[in-house]
């Protein structure tokens, strides 16, 4: 196994639905063992990108490689090493939870029965219950189980936590995905597309923000937190009118000024200090704030 080789490598990916460009010239590289976030508004092209990766859609242009393989030509080899959870989950209506798990296990060479039992208990899913009787959240839980139990090298999750209650969502993100990656550190990769960026804050190593099918920002999460800073300044009197080079946005609330900078924070801080503020504090932006600021 070549550990230096990226798990996912996309170059110049383009896909259209009729005349509408869903993805335009996207480049993406996901290294092994990382949790990679794909963020964007509705219709940004995240799901289309994932479906091109899985050979569910054929790209108009560009190349896609997973584990260095072409998912179109080496479909079985690629899919036996990954698992996918779609944004809309549906199961065969005549099957029970147990039947469904057995059905998905039938396609896999490896299936962790111990993990399956643990997850059934954690999610409080009755194995004898018909899938039609499951709630939307429980169906999502079952879909996650079918993806995690074969312990694949790559987990592709498209809005995996939609429909889950906050407790299960937190447990799923921190415990289930965390435990999945820790099961074989450095080798298990996660590509996740989500709107609930805050929930994934601690897990995301790298991310790409997409808008209208194009990449807007691609960054390492730690670097992003260092680069994007929020500076809060409180003045004794009124907030003076300022020209701050490098500031992405600024907002005034009474005597307080809030400035968001993308790099060059020290220059802005020095400039603000020179004005003799009553208080000056800096903090790193959370990923969700970076997402909001970037797309505004």
């Amino acid at each position: 196994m070549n550990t230096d080789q990226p798990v996912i490598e996309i170059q110049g990916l383009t896909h259209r639905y009729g005349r509408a460009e869903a993805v335009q010239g996207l480049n993406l590289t996901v290294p092994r063992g990382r949790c990679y976030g794909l963020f964007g508004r509705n219709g940004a092209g995240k799901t289309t990108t994932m479906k091109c990766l899985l050979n569910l859609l054929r790209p108009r242009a560009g190349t896609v490689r997973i584990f260095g393989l072409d998912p179109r030509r080496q479909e079985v080899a690629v899919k036996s090493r990954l698992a996918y959870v779609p944004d809309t989950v549906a199961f065969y209506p005549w099957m029970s939870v147990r039947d469904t798990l057995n059905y998905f296990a039938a396609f896999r060479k490896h299936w962790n029965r111990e993990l399956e039992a643990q997850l059934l208990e954690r999610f409080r899913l009755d194995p004898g219950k018909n899938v039609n009787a499951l709630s939307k959240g429980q169906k999502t839980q079952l879909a996650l189980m079918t993806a995690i139990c074969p312990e694949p090298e790559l987990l592709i999750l498209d809005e995996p936590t939609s429909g889950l209650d906050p407790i299960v969502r937190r447990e799923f993100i921190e415990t289930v995905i965390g435990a999945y990656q820790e099961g074989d550190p450095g080798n298990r990769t996660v590509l996740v597309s989500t709107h609930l960026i805050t929930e994934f804050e601690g897990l995301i190593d790298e991310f790409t923000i997409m808008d209208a099918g194009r990449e807007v920002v691609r960054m390492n999460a730690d670097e992003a937190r260092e680069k994007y800073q929020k500076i809060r300044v409180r003045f004794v009197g009124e907030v003076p009118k300022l020209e701050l080079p490098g500031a992405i946005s600024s907002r005034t609330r009474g005597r307080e000024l809030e400035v968001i900078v993308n790099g060059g924070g020290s220059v802005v801080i020095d400039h603000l200090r020179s004005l003799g503020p009553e208080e000056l504090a800096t903090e790193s932006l959370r990923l969700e704030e970076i997402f909001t600021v970037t797309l505004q």
Partner: protein
Amino acid sequence: MNQSPTFIVWWKEVRSVLPLWGVAVFAMLVSTVAPERAIDISPSTLCLFAFTLGSLVTSAHLFTRECSDRTLIWQLTMPQARMAPFWRKCCVAAGLQLLLTALFLMVIPRPQSLPANDPYLFCAITSLVAIASATLWGLVLRQTAGAVVMALTSAAFLMLGTYSFLEWSANELGGQWAQALGKPHVQMWLMSCLWVLLALASGIAAMIVWHRLQLKGDAAVISGIEIGVMAQFFSARTFARRPVWFALITKELGLLRHCFWLAALVVAAAGVFIIADLWLEQRISAAIRGTTHPEPLLWWQGVLRGVGMGIFVLAMVITPLMCGALAFAEERHLGNHAWQLCQPVSALRRWFNKIGTVAAVSVILGLLLPATLAWIHASLRNGEPMDSALAPGALPQVLTAHFLLFSLSAWAGSWSQNTISAIMKTFVALIAYVVLHAQMAGLHTPRYYSTIADHPVTAWTVTGLALVVVALFATLINHRMLLVPPRNWLTQSAVLVSAVVIAFYTGMVDN
């Protein structure tokens, strides 16, 4: 895990169509026990109908169910070759078809009444068309009902096309060719070859469609949801700008879009049939006047009339079935039912709008349209109707049958989660009704009803109308619920049976 992975994977395919296949088997078996004198239809016709429809529906549904259940995504993302599920489904279709064929050959009461006078040839052709053509249309249309209609239509068009070619060649070519082509067995041989070619071409096309599914596959996976969202958006716009009744009617017409497609197909097929039939009649007249033998032409006229009758019967049977089922089950399938229940419109008003609109569409497309086409055909043939069932005297029976089909499918649709499931349940209900009625008629002969020949009030019309009223009332009850629990539809089934029994006995007239 007790079962082997291979068994689980194959059993899943079998299980997905087992209820439909079971209905076909049940219908074939029942057709042999129904007393012929009590049900005006030959048992072999019922058996033939069940076999043909069962074959087409089973093959198409194996593929379309993945779309209707929105589970196609799992088949495409599992670690298996893209063609693996396709071949698995084809093998299951072939296996089930073999069993169905074996049963058909065992139970068919009168093999001599089958088309082509050869049950083996008929079974082989039906099986080929079912597995290849219904599969192809199922993959293209992603809907079982549409796939069955298109498979039948493509077969009918092939038959008409072949007939026209043979007729032309037999008349235009001279010498031995004309003589050879004029003989029925040569025509049958050529026709069979073309059916096999149709099946082969359909099979190859189906493989290509499945293999390149990703090009359209994404739309299929989410089409149900997209249509649901679009329907909601459309309804929301309509609610905001138009009167409520207009919004409700527009929405109902949108739900019945498949019926309009079917009507367009019927018009096209009937047009081709009428032209071909008139042309053939001219040829027969010319042959009778001249020295040519008219027998081959008369044989072909019989085949053509059979196809033509099939087109009219298809429109008259499928349209009310589809209208009733689509009106109620499609809404639940699209996920719009809960949204509809939350609108500030009373359930009764919503139900009246729905039933009124759908019944009107059903009557227009399922009765008036075929009647108009039959009238055009009869007018062009100097007022001579093709069959007594299409004559004006049969109107009370036809109307009762139409509303019975419509109301039973609406009732089945009101507690089903999708259209094909509703149609399947309607078939079960219809068969149960026919058997129950036949058994009662066996105990108390229909002479109690009327001794007047062609009297409009028969045992069938009395029990049929009772069923219509009770089924529509049950539909209203179910329409108010988001999910209909099994005890409700079981109770309603018992009430429907009671209604038939009570109507049968109270409606008797002692002569």
